[in-house]
């Protein structure tokens, strides 16, 4: 897959990713000299010099080589919630002729993992009371947390499908799912814990996009396919050579895991 994609793309501006990175490190390292602010750059140069280049534990498999993705298991959801999430996210960001959709990108795994962590439990949000009714300009004021909003939102979707179509969500046609999501987006028919369903919908939509486009380290954007579709290069160390260019430049994307393997 990765190989095929690569062939269709114009050749990279700077040769292989590694080379441009090494070139940059050399240049900036020279410029930095012995000053106090060597930072990451200094650290990387040091390691580069001291360690032979070799494959280390954690190196991703080569393209084409099938390995089991141990990340694809659940931290938070039950199986039914996962299936629901996958079905809904796929309608938000569907597979089409342009490339994979939410399901193939691992978005539901991404959302599951996020809900299990500090974001899902609003760990860094102000969650002290009293909780009062807000004007629209004052933002989210509900007492419950993101993971609770998400779980109850899924339950509301399930209930709505049963009531409107007398079917489980997996049995709905894509058109019916879209109809359902439109109702939830508008937020006028369904309430979830006293909030309009649009609050849940917005969370579903934003986390679907996050799962499609965040670094693959979080479990979504599988094999950087989200980035490829968007012609987004991911984690590049420098664009110095192309910043002034008139023509569009397509890169083979790089992820943060590259920092661990080539230079870690």
């Amino acid at each position, binding site marked *: 897959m990765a190989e095929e994609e690569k062939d269709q793309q114009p050749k990279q501006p700077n040769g292989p990713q590694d080379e441009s990175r090494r070139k940059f490190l050399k240049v900036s390292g020279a410029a930095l000299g012995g000053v106090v602010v060597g930072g990451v750059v200094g650290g990387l140069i040091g390691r580069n010099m001291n360690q032979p280049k070799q494959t280390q534990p954690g190196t991703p498999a080569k393209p084409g080589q099938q390995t089991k993705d141990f990340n694809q298991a659940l931290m938070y959801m039950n199986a039914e919630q996962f299936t629901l999430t996958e079905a809904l996210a796929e309608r938000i960001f569907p597979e*089409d002729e342009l490339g994979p959709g939410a399901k193939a990108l691992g978005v539901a795994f991404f959302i599951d993992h996020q809900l299990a962590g500090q974001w899902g439990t609003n760990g860094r949000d102000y969650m002290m009371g009293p909780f009062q009714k807000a004007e629209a300009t004052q933002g989210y004021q509900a007492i419950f947390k993101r993971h609770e909003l998400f779980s109850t939102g899924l339950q509301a979707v399930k209930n709505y499908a049963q009531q409107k179509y007398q079917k489980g969500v997996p049995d709905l046609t894509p058109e019916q799912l879209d109809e359902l999501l439109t109702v939830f987006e508008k937020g006028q028919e369904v309430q979830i814990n006293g909030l309009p369903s649009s609050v849940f919908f917005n969370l579903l939509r934003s986390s679907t996009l996050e799962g499609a486009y965040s670094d693959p380290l979080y479990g979504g954007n599988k094999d950087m396919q989200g980035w490829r579709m968007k012609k987004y290069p991911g984690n590049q160390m420098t664009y110095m050579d192309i*910043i002034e260019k008139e023509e569009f430049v397509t890169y083979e994307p790089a992820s943060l895991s590259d920092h661990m393997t080539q230079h870690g």
Partner: protein
Amino acid sequence: MATKLPKVPVVIVGMGWMGGIIAAELAKAGIKTVGLERGKRRKTEDYFMVHDELRYALRYDLMQDLSRESITFRNTSKMTALPMRTHGSFLLGEGVGGSGVHWNGQNYRFLPYDFQIRTKTIERYGAKKIPDGMQLQDWGITYDELEPYFDKYEKMAGISGDKGQNPMVGKRSADFPVGPMKKTPGIKLFEEAAKKLGYHPYMVPSANLADNYTNPDGISRAACQYCGFCERFGCEYGAKSDPVVTVLPVAEKTGNFELRDLSNVMEVLHTGGRATGVRYINTLTGEEFEQPADVVVLTSYALHNVRLLLLSKLGKPYDPSTGTGVIGRNYAYQVNGGGAQAIYEDREFNLFAGAGALGSCIDDFNGDNFDHSNLPFLHGANIRYTQAGFRPIQTNPTPAGTPKWGKEFKKQSLHYYNRILTIGVQGSSLPWRHHYLDLDPTYKDVYGRPLLRITYDFEDQDREMIKFMATKTIAIANEMKATKTQASNTISNYDIVPYQSTHNTGGAVMGTDPGNSATNTHMQMWDAENVFVIGANAFTHNSGYNPTGTLGALAYRAAEGITKYMQQGKGMIG
């Protein structure tokens, strides 16, 4: 019971740009200081994995932990203020370097008009031009007086910009220390269009180093790589100027400066109109300390400086019903809107590449650079095209009318990702009697202390300014050889949810009259001469610019004031 520590000459509260500059200047002058920072230490090595949009841009890794402390907000005093439960409209920083770590690096000097805004407005248009309730006031200092300090700050930070004098801004005594950033195709299109319309485009003055640079303090840093991760991120190269890679190491090298992180100041201790020190808590152990000092310098973020004064009962709180009192007065923000988009069906741009301060702008409609006689607003905006680097989660542009999800959304957002150039407006925000800061009666921080309450809304002045700016941005977009263009020209009420700007200003403003200012122009408190309150809290209004350049100049001048005060031992610095 707080542990009482040995007295120090100066204690500095908050280790961002303001604290870093004061620490470096005092340390170089041989004055011993202790710097207290509530957050943790940072270094460039911490940004090993910084090219992570989710972690830094959407999960706010570098921002204030709101579970411990937030602010409350309401549009008017008739509403009940509610806490900002998650980050949105503005991004409060935390940790060594403060917001100076996650900024974009756009670095302007406020206009000569700004510093004498009341006098110059009345001179040109008469007193009636200032609407009822608008508390326009001079800063007590002129641009010319501040110019040497702008220069000093820019040389420290290595600000990159065009050579020569721009006719729309204050006169410079010297060129920028570093040449301008590189020009992208989008920047060239904007420049050509603006010139064609008779305007005066110039490269945004940038704290993302355009070239390798050694500053007068001997700090060498390498050039920006245009990696596209500035705002909300720290710079792993140290190419973006921030306190951690410039002033703080200079201060520490002297041996005259001690930085204590994880030290959250609870109050300024004072008696009989003099501060005696500060009380702070170690945020990990909960242990309390009293740090006695001859001089207390508050250098945290504008909002936090004001809150600490209110919590410490230092200075007279502002009362909007009578317009008296000064702590909390003249809160202002930034008015953005009226932007235009140039859409290209025939080409794609490398918009993933960029830097926080990479762009071109005009000031033809900023300050009083244009005639307001027949306009229903004062001041104006900086209009610019910037290429900060599009990141894929937050950038999903679609033409008006496209659904927000589904097949069509996917198709359009992928198609237009690299095809839209946006011209932005950064508008001034003028002070009103009913826009202010005080302590919230209900909501508390993790230590049980009241949160700061913001009462603020957009006014007709702002809506009219945005409507006017939209006519200018669309005119420029129309000259940019695009397939089509579109603009929005309305703003309604201020909403704390969508990100707008981290330029909160005022609340403890500077001036020459203790009746309408908290400090003199060295940011020395009228009500406690050994307390200096340094930050954007000093702005009597906010200009159509990013504030940091002006803050840097004010901080260098204040450092001189503090040094002078230490020498003479008493009195207000003239």
